[in-house]
C-alpha cells in the first residue's frame, strides 16, 4: 500500500491505497466523489477530466499516488450549495447536455480553459474541447453553453477555485 495525501476540493484527504489505484478510482471509490465519470479505457473520452494544480488532466491516466501532495478539483466543487457554477448554469439554460455522462468532464475542461482564455471565440472553444467526447449532443449546445458562460463570467468575480 502507498500512502497518498491529496487536497481535494480544498479539503486535505489522506488514504492508504494500492499503488496501482488510478486517481479516478481514488476519487470515486475511496472518497465517494462519483461525479467524475469513466467512459473509456483508452484515455480518449475525457469524461474523467479533473483539475490537478488548476490544469485539466484525465484522472484515468494518472495514479492516485502521482497526485500525492497536489491540489485536485472535481465537479463536486463547482456548485455552491444550490447555486450552480456559471458554467453549469449555462449548460442548463442552453441544453448543453442530454444523457449528462460527458458533462462533468466538459464542465471541468471548460473551467480550466476559461481561466486561461476568458473571452474565447467559437473556434477556440471547439479546439479546447478536443479531448472531450459527447455521444449525444452533437457539441453545438455544449459550445454555445461555454460561450454563454464566458459571457456571464467575464467581469464577474473569480468563481472556480482552481
Amino acid at each position, binding site marked *: 500500500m502507498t500512502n497518498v495525501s491529496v487536497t481535494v476540493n480544498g479539503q486535505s484527504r489522506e488514504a492508504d491505497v494500492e499503488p496501482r489505484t488510478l486517481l479516478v478510482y481514488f476519487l470515486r471509490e475511496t472518497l465517494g466523489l462519483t461525479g467524475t465519470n469513466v467512459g473509456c479505457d483508452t484515455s480518449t473520452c475525457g469524461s474523467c477530466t479533473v483539475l490537478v494544480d488548476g*490544469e485539466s488532466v484525465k484522472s484515468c491516466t*494518472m495514479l492516485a499516488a502521482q497526485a500525492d501532495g497536489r491540489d485536485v478539483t472535481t465537479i463536486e466543487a463547482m456548485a455552491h450549495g444550490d447555486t450552480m457554477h456559471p458554467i453549469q448554469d449555462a449548460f442548463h439554460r442552453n441544453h448543453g447536455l442530454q444523457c449528462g455522462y460527458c458533462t462533468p468532464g466538459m464542465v471541468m475542461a471548460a473551467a480550466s480553459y476559461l481561466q486561461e482564455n476568458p473571452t474565447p471565440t467559437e473556434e477556440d472553444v471547439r479546439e479546447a474541447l478536443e479531448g*472531450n467526447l459527447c455521444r449525444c449532443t452533437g457539441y453545438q449546445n455544449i459550445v454555445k453553453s461555454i460561450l454563454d458562460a464566458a459571457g456571464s463570467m467575464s467581469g464577474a468575480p473569480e468563481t472556480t477555485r482552481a
Partner: protein
Amino acid sequence: MLREGAMSVDYLAPADMAAALEMRGAGGTVLAGGTDLFPQHVGRPMTQPVIDIGGVQELRDIVDTPDAYRFGALARWADVADTDLPSCFDGLRAAAREVGSVQVQNSGTIGGNLCNASPAADGIPPLLSLDASVELTSTVGTRVLRLDEFLTGYRATALRPDELLTAVLVPRGPDGARSSFRKLGLRGYLVISVVMVAAVVAASSDGRITDVRLAVGACSPVAQRLPSLEAELVDRRIDDFDAAVIARHLGALTPIDDVRATAAYRFEAASVLVHRALQACGSER
C-alpha cells in the same frame, strides 16, 4: 473497462535524479506523463516496479545554454507550446499543440514521446528537422546520441534498461531560420497522424534557400529526413520551384496500407504536405 493502473508491483517515486538513476539501475519501468504507458497496459499488467520520475524537478526545465537548447525529458507538450523560443522552433511548438488534446498536452512529455518511439509520434519529425540529440544517463555516466541513432526501428530505441532519457538537446540553428509542421489526420481533432511533415528553412535576403531540413513521419517505421530533396532545394527560391521535384525524392519512404490510409495515399499526401510545409516557411517573410 479500465479499473486500475494495471500493475500489481511496487510504485517508486524518487525525489531526485540520483535516486531515480539508482532505482532505474536496479530495474523498473519509467513513468513520466503516463499517456502512452497507461493505455498500453489496459489488461496487460506491468511486471516490473514502476519508477515515477515526475518528482525529479531538474528534468522539467527548458533552458537556453551556450551551445544548445536543452529540453528536460519531463518538459510537457503544454510547456513546449507555451515557451518563448526562436522561430526555428515554431514547427515543434505547432506539433506540441497537435499532440492529443489539452489534457494530454498537460501530462504527456517530450521524453515519453521519444522513448515510446511510435512511427506516428508528432514530436519526432520536428526534432529530426532540428538535428536534435538525446542525453541518456545512468549511474555509470551520460552519453549523447543523435535522435536518428536513438530511434532504431518500429517502437524501438537505443535506450538501455538502466538508462533514463534526461534531456533533448537542440543545437543552435541558422539565424532567423523558420520552421513549420503539417499533420494530416482523418479528422481535425484528437487524431493519430496519417502523415506529418516538419520543415526548417533558412533563406538569404533575396529568398534563396541556404539551408533546409525536412522530415516525414508515419511513412516508415522511423520518421526520416529527406537528404536528397534537401540538397536539391538549396539555392532555389522558396516561393518558386516546381513542386513535382518533391515526389522524385520520396523513394526512401516505405508507407504501409492500414486502417487509416493506403500506402499510395500516404505517398501523395507526403508530397503535398512537404510542399505546404515549405510554403509555410516562405510566407510571412
